[in-house]
């Protein structure tokens, strides 16, 4: 029960941090880093749920774009290069995880009931 409560508290904290990030980003930040967003306001509330979830990525991309360190031509190269390896890794890891889960799960018990003390 305590673990479940801790997980919920952590999720709540994460979402509140996202809410804090979403205010400056959607009011000012998105217009500064994305020219097409300037003067466009209606769509911005639609981004709130996404910002709540991936706010660290939002902050990182905001920082990269603000400081002019973004190189759009290279942006997708490293992930693309890793896709082949990731695909192979997942093809091995997913069956292994399933098989490990099946191997370590409990076997149904077969013990007969044991009378420890007869009724008084």
């Amino acid at each position, binding site marked *: *029960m305590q673990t479940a409560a801790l997980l919920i508290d952590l999720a709540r904290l994460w979402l509140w941090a996202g809410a804090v990030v979403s205010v400056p980003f959607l009011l000012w930040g998105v217009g500064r880093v994305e020219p097409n967003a300037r003067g466009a306001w209606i769509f911005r509330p639609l981004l709130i749920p996404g910002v709540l979830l991936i706010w660290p990525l939002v902050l990182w991309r905001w920082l990269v774009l603000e400081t002019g360190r973004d190189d759009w031509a290279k942006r997708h190269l490293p992930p693309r290069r890793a896709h082949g390896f990731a695909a192979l890794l997942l093809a091995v890891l997913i069956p292994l995880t399933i098989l490990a889960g*099946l191997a370590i*799960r*409990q*076997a*149904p*018990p*077969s*013990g*007969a*009931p*044991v*009378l*420890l*003390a*007869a*009724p*008084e």
Partner: protein
Amino acid sequence: MRARDEFFIGFFPIPPGLRPFLAAIAAALILLFAVAGWFAASTQAAPDEAGFRFDFGRQEVTGVLSLHPYPVIRVTEGSERLAAGRTVMLSGGGKFAPPQVAALDRRLVKAGGVILRRGDLDMLQIGGGERNLSAAEGDAPALSPPERLGRWRLEGEICDGKCAAGAMRPGRGLSHKACANLCITGGVPAVFVSAAPIEGATFLLMAGPEGGPLPPEALAFTAAYVSVEGEIERIGDLLVFRIDPATLRAL
């Protein structure tokens, strides 16, 4: 254009060089998912015959209600499917105890609802409203006292009596555990599914050491195979397992 430069576009005819490859991939995927489906299903226990018995129709019985450890009715006037003398566990809709039940403890009541049945485990799901659960005329008759059967060590699984009786197909793992714990904390009777029959019963109503509801520490052991010791007593035709939570041990 060289063959290796052929490119698949959905709305154009398939390039000849890609046809064998696409056919092989399509056949392999169909085969892969069929095998994966068979494999996943083969790792699960058979659900057996259990569930809501709407085909029995609404059952209405009269009997003495007891809320300890969980709501049960000791039937004095039975119905077609629940004979007099039976002790039947009760639940409400969803993951809850029967509604408006607190004031009726130890009183003669009329209860109506639908049966859930798995093997020798019966549960009556009571709907809302007075039509389904209300005080009956007359005093509660004197019933036989619990018969003590001694202290036992059993192996099996702690489940909630409603899902185990067929409201759900009892599963395995974390979702099964969360489901069972929600039912039990909602007031649905907890049952012990014994690995082997004891006094002819596979399902025992569970109780805490003092005869109250299952102690909270036992919820950490639900939906897993465990060994546990406790006193067993017979109330009517129902076995009640008053566990000693200190002896709970995952197998």
